[in-house]
């Protein structure tokens, strides 16, 4: 059972960066006015930030990292591990983490690698970086998590376009024997791997002459085989059952007093799904922030982005207990109980 604690690792700061460029769902022409209204009501997504052609996830994460390093007053050569969580890396190879090590001017004595997870990726990334720092004694680390999912979507697919936005984040970790432990519950159900998938372009289905042929699946949904496919119904069924389960498992396993948790930050999938999860867990709604309205589903960025957009005041010069939970593509999920004690929350960057 992948439920475990990591001791002696503190979270020092969080920063996020989003593209300046805004897209409003009311402006979309792939949906009728009536459909848009229903869509916004159900999903909660009104606007999204969309990267222009020249902005990649690594660019967003790079800006977030630079700002965070500055706000923390860290020296770059102290950073010994960089983990980049993303499904929109710069290239098929090499890893973007290597490019970022160089761009950020980090030491060449720095562990750097990519983790290609999505919605569960922030929590997975935390477990990887904290676990590795605890095991090795590395002192300072950066978790960069983000996606520019808009680059993967067919512009003529009403089942994906109105949901996804772009964003990147940076989170700073430091070895600290006084830090409160971080509790994790992680899991995987690969039987649902087709629920969110890009069929072509990997090595199972190499890009071929049919890959870019646009196929109409149904009215309002046409795409090619290099675009993201989202089976909304199965993902919804998965989310409303698995997210409450993993939170309950964490709480039971580590005997967490749920009333003492200040904030519950869930992956921002869609409002209907998230509300259902909150209802099933019987959580007080005022403890559950959302950033869906302004940013949509930004994949592994949703948790840090929601913290920055909604909890900045609550966390300033304060010590708070949070449960964070990500779930989605894989299918994969992760929940963690973290203590944010006087963390630096950088102002949101727009590029």
């Amino acid at each position, binding site marked *: 059972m992948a439920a475990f604690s990591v001791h002696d690792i503190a979270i020092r700061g969080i920063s996020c960066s989003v593209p300046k460029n805004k897209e409003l769902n009311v402006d979309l022409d792939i949906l009728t006015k009536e*459909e848009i209204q*229903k*869509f916004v009501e*159900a999903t909660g997504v009104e606007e999204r930030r969309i990267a222009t052609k020249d902005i990649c996830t690594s660019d967003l994460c790079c800006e977030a990292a630079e700002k965070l390093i500055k706000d923390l007053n860290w020296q770059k050569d102290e950073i010994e591990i960089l983990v980049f969580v993303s499904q929109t890396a710069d290239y098929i190879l090499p890893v973007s983490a290597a490019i970022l090590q160089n761009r950020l001017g980090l030491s060449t004595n720095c562990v750097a690698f990519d983790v290609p997870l999505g919605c569960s990726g922030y929590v997975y990334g935390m477990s990887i970086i904290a676990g590795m720092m605890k095991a090795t004694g590395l002192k300072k680390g950066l978790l960069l998590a983000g996606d520019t999912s808009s680059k993967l979507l067919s512009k003529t697919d009403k*089942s994906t376009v109105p949901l996804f936005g772009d964003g990147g984040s940076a989170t700073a970790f430091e070895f600290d024997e006084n830090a409160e432990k971080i509790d994790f519950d992680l899991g995987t159900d690969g039987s649902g791997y087709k629920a969110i998938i890009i069929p072509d372009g990997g090595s199972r289905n190499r890009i071929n002459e049919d890959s870019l042929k646009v196929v109409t699946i149904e009215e309002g949904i046409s795409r090619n085989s290099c675009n993201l496919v989202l*089976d*909304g*119904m*199965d993902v*919804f*069924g998965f989310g*409303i*059952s698995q997210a409450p389960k993993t939170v309950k498992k964490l709480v039971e396993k580590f005997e967490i007093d749920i009333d003492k948790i200040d904030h519950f930050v869930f992956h921002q999938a869609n409002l*209907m*799904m998230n509300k*259902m999860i909150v209802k*099933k867990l019987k959580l007080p709604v005022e403890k559950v922030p959302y950033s869906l309205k302004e940013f949509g589903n930004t994949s592994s960025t949703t948790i840090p982005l929601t913290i920055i957009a909604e909890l900045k005041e609550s966390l300033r010069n304060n010590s708070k207990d949070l449960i964070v939970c990500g779930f989605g593509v894989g299918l994969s999920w992760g929940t963690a109980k973290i203590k944010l004690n006087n963390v630096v929350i950088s102002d949101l960057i727009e590029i």
Partner: protein
Amino acid sequence: MEINAFLKNFADLLDDTDAALITQETVFRDLDEWNSLTALSLIAMADEEYDVKLTGDEIKSSNSLNDIFEIIKNKA
């Protein structure tokens, strides 16, 4: 599990559809109000009321509300 209670639960998912139109034989896909979001509400209702996980394929392969009712009944 009882069909009338299920039909009422289904009618409650809809805003603009006369509950009288919701019968065992109703082809839910032909309802004006049926769309991908209603499908999500149906999945949520099955989960909440019957603790059953309806899959996308099960909904896609069903025609009448009775088909859905039978699937939920068999899984409950």
